[in-house]
């Protein structure tokens, strides 16, 4: 079968199996912490409003943060027990996040939502509201509320739902394991979305470095209406939303637009499984699979309760192999740095990766030698070296004309730069400054 792909891209950590070899063979293991600290801003959009108080007893799955606004989603207790604190805690964002801390009583008394039953017979109009009530947001990292993605604005139409099983980011194997261990749930989730949106075609897209996952999903997709598996070339950022749409449908997402502007919706495979759990069992989003790897003694794929401290997850993965020099949530290309290991894993935390001090050492940056590597590999086909130059000179308007906003922030340019220039950080800053200017 033809391998689908996009133009540009790189193959990071090619000689280390993208950093995945340590965990790709490790079955998902449950881990439940003694205490969870659940941020109210795990998703993109307005944060939840806490609706429990210190000292209150909560059940597993009980709403602890109410959804705010049409785009908002609620947060649920990921353990049963006593609320020990409601207040700001330093998390992965620049400013402290409002959090609800719960001490686990390990009783796991469940307060489930109403289940809709089999995905093929559940009432179509109730699926998207159920997804919102379950607090589901994109589990590939960005945390965009899923119900908002599925509810199309007037005049928009979609003909393809793409499940993102590319997992092109380095180090991560959580989606890989999920495709091996719960393929049925993933297809169920896809079918629920297809029925809710009235879309006939569903494509599960997987990179060819995971032949076992391709096989597993093919088997699960057999006999399911309109569901197919597409094989992608192993290349970063194959799982980038826009790149995936182009690889699968051959269409480009117009500049400044969303996948729906190319008549497609992209959902992470983990999100699809969470949707199935909600529709079939009425289970809110209270746990997820996270790859804990890097400089830890026993790299693992853990099913973590939302709000589990990085430190607890790392302890469960055997503890540090040596003193950490850096910890980030996500893979090494786009992961977000943690200030320390007290921060919480959220609905979007697909990986917790630790680097040794030596690995974390920043390389010295020197001048651009115009080698053109960043230009050659840029999947957005913009000119990273030039945009950095414009940013440094303060010529933001020119940068805007030269499509700085089309950057998908994949970091490939910084990765390939032989002069170790901070290309992505400069481009990000340029985009932020342009946004601030517009808001003023």
């Amino acid at each position, binding site marked *: 079968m033809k391998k689908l792909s996009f133009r540009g891209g790189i193959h*990071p950590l090619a000689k280390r199996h993208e950093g995945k070899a340590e965990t790709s063979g490790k079955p998902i293991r449950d881990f439940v912490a003694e205490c969870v600290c659940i941020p109210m801003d795990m998703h993109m959009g307005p944060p939840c409003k806490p609706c429990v108080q210190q000292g209150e007893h909560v059940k597993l799955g009980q709403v602890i943060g109410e959804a705010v606004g049409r785009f908002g989603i609620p947060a649920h207790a990921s353990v049963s027990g006593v609320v020990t604190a409601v207040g700001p805690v330093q998390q992965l964002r620049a400013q402290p996040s409002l959090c609800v801390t719960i001490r686990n009583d390990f009783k796991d008394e469940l307060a489930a939502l109403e289940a809709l039953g089999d995905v093929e017979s559940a009432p179509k109009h109730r699926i998207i509201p159920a997804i919102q009530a379950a607090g589901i947001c994109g589990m590939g990292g960005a945390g965009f509320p899923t119900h908002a993605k599925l509810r199309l604005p007037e005049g928009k139409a979609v003909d393809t739902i793409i499940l993102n099983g590319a997992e092109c980011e380095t180090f991560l194997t959580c989606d890989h394991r999920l495709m091996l261990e719960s393929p049925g749930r993933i297809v169920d989730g896809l079918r629920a979305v297809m029925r809710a949106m009235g879309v006939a075609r569903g494509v599960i897209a997987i990179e060819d470095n995971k032949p076992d996952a391709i096989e597993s999903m093919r088997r699960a997709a057999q006999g399911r209406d309109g569901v197919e598996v597409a094989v992608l070339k192993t290349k970063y950022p194959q799982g980038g939303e826009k790149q995936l749409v182009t690889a699968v449908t051959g269409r480009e997402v117009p500049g400044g637009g969303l996948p729906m502007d190319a008549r497609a919706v992209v959902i992470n495979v983990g999100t699809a499984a969470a949707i199935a759990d909600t529709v079939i069992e009425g289970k809110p989003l209270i746990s997820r699979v996270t790859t804990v790897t890097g400089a830890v003694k026993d790299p693992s794929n853990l099913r973590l309760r939302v709000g589990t401290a990085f430190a607890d997850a790392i302890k469960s993965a055997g503890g540090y192999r040596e003193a950490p020099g850096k910890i980030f949530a996500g893979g*090494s290309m786009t992961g977000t*740095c943690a200030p320390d*290991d007290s921060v919480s894993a959220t609905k979007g935390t697909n990986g917790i990766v630790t680097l040794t001090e030596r690995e974390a050492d920043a390389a010295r940056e020197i001048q651009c*030698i115009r080698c053109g590597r960043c230009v050659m590999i840029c999947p957005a*086909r913009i000119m990273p070296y030039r945009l950095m130059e414009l940013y440094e000179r303060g010529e933001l308007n020119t940068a805007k004309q030269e499509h700085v906003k*089309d950057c998908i922030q994949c970091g490939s340019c910084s990765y390939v730069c*032989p002069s170790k220039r901070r290309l992505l*950080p400069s481009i990000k800053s340029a985009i932020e400054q342009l946004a601030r200017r517009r808001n003023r």
Partner: protein
Amino acid sequence: MTLPLSTGPHILGKRTTRGIMLDVLIALTPAAAAGVYLFGVRAAWVLGVAVASAVATEALWQRLSHRPLQVGDLSAVVTGLLLGLNLPSSAPLWLAAVGSAFAIVVVKQLFGGIGHNFLNPALAARAVLLTSWPARMTTFFLPERTLLPVASTAMVGDAVTSATPLVKSGTAMIDLFWGNIPGTIGEVCKAAILIGFIYLLVRNVIGPHIPVLFVGTVALMTWLLGGDPLTAILSGGVLLGAVFMATDYVTNPMLIVSQCLFAALCGVIVVVIRQSAGGYPEGVTYAILLMNVLTPLLDKLFKRRAYGEVKQRA
């Protein structure tokens, strides 16, 4: 515990600018070795002085201007070696030293150092030496010994030619190829240059398009004008320039399409100079320098369509 915060990517690729320069040096080694073999110890002295002068000048400049010492990136070594390879083995050692110093200070550092020069430093220095000391720059020793196999036309001995190194008609291709002819230290042995070219391709330092289009255009233009294309590409500095100088990252355009135009125009200018100046030997140097000057324009003229860019209606 307080850990450093930074934007990704958190692990970078292994390739460094120093590593690329080292690859270029390795690729230049066969040409340098062949030059020393053919022209003797004198050639080694010229190369050595050119490199030493480039490195010393750069270090001194960075010291005096209170900039971080950056000779470790090896770019000055590349510049020095390239200039040396573009000199005749007859060149006085002071000429090599002066040329390298000019390349580093005037062409490279005055414009901001590595990455900021708009001309190839070695070629610009060579052009200056040519205009300042034309006789010394065009006095060529014949090779002291020959590289096998050899045809009867091989030119060996103690003789000096001060004429053109563009070979007289009748020289066997085989001698042009192996370098049994007078010329600058690095340009004569085409076999050695090709080995370096293959190395650069394998190491993915350069793509094939610039050298191939450059040389291909020279061959095609020469053939159209009634000359012998093979002789044209095997004589003078066409191959050395196409493989090592036209591919200089800093001074050629950034997009593949504009690089192709750059290379083809280099080829055209070489043939025009050779034809109109009656076999004037320095077509390659001036062709590349001219195109270096045009590079910012090519970068401006050629834009590629960004992903998802919608054509604006007029």
